[in-house]
């Protein structure tokens, strides 16, 4: 901040009003939509109760946009979409047009500019991004890189409607999981307790809060070489990494031992069943930049099996629920291990307390 200038008090305007930026056809028909149709992958048609039609063309971006890209997208929106844009929560772009004739030219313009149209309905939409090595202070992997590498291989599923239902994939670059749960989630899983940099603890750590942060009470204050430091009970430690953000000397990230794990069946929608948590299916996957081929291969194997075996409208969790987990492991060829048996609080509810068995 420039030393001379008098500090400027902020205007606490908070969350801005949305209507000022909304396409006029949306504003006019706010709360007045009748139904929608899906003319082709990447295109939605919404019809209002008064007969107003709008077409949405959905396109993937790299989420983190350089100003050139922003201006390029703005130019497209000006040319074909009345100068309005919106982003979905998966960082996809939506261009709105009220004139059907503009739909195909818009798609062409988007595609020509290097963006991908798709991601609607029963496709694999864009993976959720998080910060990763690019910005976060605790990442075990990169997120933008994982998304880019995986979507390069899943692009055919983004631009088509081959999936039984929507597929929402998430990534997270540490075990904290800012990316959230998904039909498939690719998450970091540490496999060794943190190495403690004892020299740093005394300077940078509020020791009581680190101790309190550990979910399994594995951390104790300790004197090391006469200086206050910390000690980890390695038999208790579940390698979650929760101690790392408040105390960077708890070095949990490890080029070798921070692995990836894949979880499936997270579903937040209420459609049909109640929302469900995701479950572990694969772990020990190498964290292998720049293209993470091992993780992608497993994701593709799961998607292929899902595509072939699930019924229309079955999300991944519902499909597995119907065919049973033993069959899931059989069909995907993934190993079932003792680690698949939950042992966290409430784990009992995950045990099969019945004679319901498929043979």
């Amino acid at each position: 901040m420039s030393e001379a200038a008098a500090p400027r008090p902020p205007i606490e305007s908070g969350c801005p009003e949305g209507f000022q930026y909304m396409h006029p056809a949306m504003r006019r028909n706010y709360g007045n939509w009748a139904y929608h149709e899906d003319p082709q992958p990447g295109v939605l048609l919404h019809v209002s109760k008064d007969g107003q039609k709008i077409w949405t063309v959905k396109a993937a971006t790299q989420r983190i946009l350089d100003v050139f890209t922003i201006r390029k997208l703005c130019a497209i929106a000006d040319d074909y979409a009345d100068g309005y844009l919106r982003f979905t929560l998966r960082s996809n772009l939506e261009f709105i047009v009220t004139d059907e004739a503009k739909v195909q030219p818009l798609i062409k313009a988007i595609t020509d500019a290097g963006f991908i149209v798709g991601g609607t309905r029963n496709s694999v939409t864009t993976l959720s991004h998080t910060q990763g090595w690019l910005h976060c202070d605790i990442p075990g992997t990169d997120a933008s890189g994982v998304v880019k590498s995986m979507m390069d291989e899943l692009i055919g599923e983004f631009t088509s409607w081959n999936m039984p239902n929507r597929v929402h994939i998430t990534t997270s670059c540490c075990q904290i999981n800012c990316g959230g749960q998904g039909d498939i989630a690719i998450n970091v899983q540490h496999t060794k307790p943190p190495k403690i940099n004892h020299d740093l603890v005394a300077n940078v750590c509020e020791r009581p809060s680190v101790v309190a942060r550990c979910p399994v009470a594995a951390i104790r204050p300790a004197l090391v070489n006469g200086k206050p430091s910390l000690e980890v009970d390695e038999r208790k430690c579940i390698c979650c990494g929760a101690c790392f953000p408040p105390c960077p000397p708890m070095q949990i990230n490890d080029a070798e031992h921070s692995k990836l794990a894949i979880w499936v069946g997270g579903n937040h929608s209420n459609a049909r069943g109640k929302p469900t948590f995701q479950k572990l299916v694969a772990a020990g996957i190498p964290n292998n930049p720049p293209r993470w081929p091992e993780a992608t291969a497993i994701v593709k194997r799961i998607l292929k099996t899902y595509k072939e075996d699930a019924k229309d409208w079955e999300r991944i969790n519902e499909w597995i629920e119907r065919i049973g987990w033993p069959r899931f492991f059989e069909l995907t060829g993934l190993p079932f291990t003792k680690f698949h048996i939950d042992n966290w609080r409430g784990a009992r509810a995950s045990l099969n307390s019945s004679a319901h068995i498929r043979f």
Partner: protein
Amino acid sequence: MAEHFDTPMLDELENGPWPSFISGFKRLRDEHPEERIRSVANSLLGQLEHSYETRKGYWKGGTVSVFGYGAGIIPRFSEVDDAFQASKEFHTLRVQPPPGNYYTTDMLRQLADSWEKYGSGLITFHGQTGNIMFIGADTENTQTFFDEINDYGWDLGGAGPDVRTGMSCVGAARCEQSCIDEQKIHRTLQNNFTDDVHRPALPYKFKFKISGCPNDCQNSIERSDFSVIGTWRDDMKVDQEAFKGYLQTKGRQYLIDNVITRCPTNALAITDDDTLAVDNRNCVRCMHCLNVMPKALSPGDDRGATICIGGKRTLKIGDLMGTVIVPFKKLETEEDFESLVEMAEEVIDFWAENGLEHERCGEMIERIGLVNFLEGIGVDVDPNMVNNPRQSSYVRMDEWDAEAEKWFERKAEEAAG
């Protein structure tokens, strides 16, 4: 004998059409030829009336057993024996019935005769754990009565921290759903542990219950530590003609609403030519369709049992259902039965060593985790043991590769046969 105690409250339990236990007590009090039994019944009625009036129980425990055994008697001493002398010692002998509770009238009469000699004249068929309860003997007569019936083939059941009396359903003796030989399983398991029944030395009680099919008429999954439930592995048998019969008598709509849509995995369909199509790979052997149409549907031929461990009621961590430890076990050859017994021994031994005092097997599993239990008894993990894989990422998995390898090796071995 003393005056009859007034029993105005109990008398009300003689009203109404349901058979009255009070009338039975009174019959003993009023009609029995033996004075001893008449006064025991009178005294018992008196104390019970007192309980009804004060809404409290007046029995206390103690230590009574027969020579050579440490269990099988539930001792009861009256806390109000001043008033109710004749029934002041009122112990119960828990006697093991045959699996399925079969009796000839001759044997029943013989048992009644012996009991009349030494006990109160009241017998309970049966206690909730399945014992015949000879209820109401004094300390001396528990031994004499036991000696007499033990001579003609009856033995005590469990009580205290020991293997308890088992139970099994009518099963193969009369039920078309039965997939296993309940008689044999029951006796093989139970009698392998006779010593553990009679000499309490375990952390707590341990119960076997056997149900011939997943209808689980013995409530085994919630009321026993070791639950054996019959099932089958191949396709169910469908008699399409009999199915058409149901279609005719019950009607299509009824069968759709009551069978097709009730299948938990949507594994059933009625095809256009009115045959029943069963998706056997997705059938979870719930029994529902077989229950509704027993003439048309029956279990397959490749039969065996699912074994669930750890069921029990509330104390002290909340009710537990047993959980699948063995998804399928053949029970045909002698080796099959030997390995069943071995498995039960592994379970009981591991629990005996690792259970805390008064901790049921299921509570121990809850405390140490299923995986540690499986390792303790030498059973491999299997996805049939879970409703779903883990939801929590809080686990250390550095041995993942080795564990994955184990799975692939097992699968390769299975494939090789």
